[in-house]
């Protein structure tokens, strides 16, 4: 599948934003120490909303007719893309409400708690819906895989948590958070590694023989394609440029994730302050770059059954 920069930017950035929003709101809900500093909490919410908004704006670059994007909230009964849009929009009011009532106005009571609860649910639901867009597509075996939704959720948390570790560097009680972030990174990337092993081993969904209904006739091979130039199908679904480097790119992504993890361990050991910031900032960047590479591979390595008709494996 063609790895469109707009979709990679969208899923990586909004994922980190929703991960951060989820952790902040959960922290507020459970009265964890990382919501104690109103300033850090407020800036964190603003950063999360910034990531989410930039991501969502990037996603509209993928549309050929973005002026009709508002229609995408109408078909939530059947379409995961529509659900994603609904959840994304529905998460803005409670997140903004939490920002206003909690840190800015210093309100106590049920209203900020309700906002925090809805933000937690909204953030998780939006990332899950994003994952389900891909996981529900049967013609692409690398996407129609049970590990895709948990991976999207874990990677969102694992790219949001290092950001939180930066924001709360001067909150001594929140120092263990860096270890939480390191743990999330570890779980997410171990799972990603097992997903990669799965898709390398999984059998193709169909063959050219079954795609042409010629199973009983013998070996089927492509003799002549139906068109001389590339078309939408071969460019969008038949992407194979640099797929041959996928092994190296997987290692590179794992390397970045590991480096982020090591930084977070040092950040956790530092016990807060400038040292924690010094280690958490590169960790946040490295974790995000790792997800960027992972997302690129998620598209570039995915094969579509339409490729069968062009003589390629699926």
């Amino acid at each position, binding site marked *: *599948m063609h790895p469109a920069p707009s979709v990679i930017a969208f899923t990586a950035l909004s994922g980190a934003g929703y991960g951060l929003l989820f952790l902040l709101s959960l922290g507020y809900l459970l009265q964890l120490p990382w919501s104690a500093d109103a300033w850090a909490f407020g800036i964190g919410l603003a950063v999360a909303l910034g990531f989410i908004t930039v991501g969502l704006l990037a996603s509209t670059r*993928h*549309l*050929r*007719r*973005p002026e*009709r*994007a508002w*229609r*995408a*909230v*109408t*078909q939530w*009964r*059947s*379409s*995961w*893309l*529509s659900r994603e*849009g609904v959840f994304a929009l529905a998460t803005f009011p409670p997140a903004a409400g939490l920002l206003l009532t909690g840190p800015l106005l210093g309100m106590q009571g049920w209203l900020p708690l309700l906002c925090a609860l809805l933000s937690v649910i909204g953030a998780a639901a939006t990332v899950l819906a994003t994952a389900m*867009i891909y996981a*529900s*597509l*049967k*013609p*692409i075996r690398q996407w129609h895989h049970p590990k895709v939704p948990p991976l999207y959720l874990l990677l969102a948390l694992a790219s949001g948590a290092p950001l939180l570790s930066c924001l709360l560097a001067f909150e001594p009680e929140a120092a263990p958070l860096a270890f939480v972030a390191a743990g999330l990174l570890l779980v997410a990337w171990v799972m990603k590694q097992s997903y990669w092993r799965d898709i390398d081993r999984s059998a193709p*969904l*169909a063959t*050219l023989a*079954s*795609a*042409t*209904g*010629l199973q*009983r*006739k*013998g*070996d*089927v*091979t*492509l*003799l*002549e*394609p*139906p*068109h001389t*130039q*590339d*078309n*939408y*199908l071969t460019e*969008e*679904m038949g992407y194979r440029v640099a797929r041959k480097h996928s092994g190296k790119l997987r290692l590179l992504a794992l390397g970045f994730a590991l480096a982020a993890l090591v930084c977070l361990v040092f950040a956790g050991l530092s016990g807060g302050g400038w040292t924690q910031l010094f280690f958490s900032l590169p960790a946040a960047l490295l974790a995000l770059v790792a997800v960027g590479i992972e997302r690129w591979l998620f598209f570039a390595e995915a094969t*579509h*059954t*339409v490729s069968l*008709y062009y003589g390629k494996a699926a």
Partner: protein
Amino acid sequence: MTSLPKRPPEKALGLVIDLDTCVGCQACVVNCKEWNTGGYPAPLSDLDPYGANPAGAWLNRVHAFEVEPEEGQPQVVHFPKSCLHCADAACVTVCPTGASYKRESDGIVLVDEDRCMGCGLCAWACPYGAREMDPVVGVMKKCTLCVDRIYNEAIPEEERQPACVRTCPASARHFGDLADPDSEVSRLVAERGGRDLMPELGYHPTNKYLPPRPRREGCQSAAPKALEPASPEGGFLGWLDRVLGG
């Protein structure tokens, strides 16, 4: 609404494509483009159509495959492919805007182009590659089963068929109601063992493909016959062979 019809449509209009008689002439491809660039999905655009790198949206394409049986001669199979108007059309249910829909009355899958935002998700959801993005208009295009011909009372009755069917010089394409077991197309499917494409994916396509008939007895051997001896004993050919220096 991009949910599928709750009840199975009363009719299941579709095509039956005969891989035995298709000669790969591309007439259906051209006539499809010609009709549809002026019909329901107009325009059906191309980029650089007369230049070095032409590309564009087409609703019907003819691939050519080689089939090599374990015994006997290899065979070329020309393979026209257009939308199969699936019963379980995932292209419809994934659509976020309500542009894609399957008609309750006859099962035809269509795109309301005024609602399409060009996200391309339906093309990802189609295992057959039946949908192509229009490079100029920026909306998804697909086979309409010539919905603007088959019910069109302004054209003569014999023209009320999809353009690809009407134009096929080998009568390799047949149009009809596949939900009716007594229809001509259903009988063809039953007689000739019509097949679904990629049945393992569970889309339940309406269009069926008739596999090529077995080759006749006389041409089962893959090995070419040995040439006649070039210098028969005596006779006119023997004389000619000697004269020509054989």
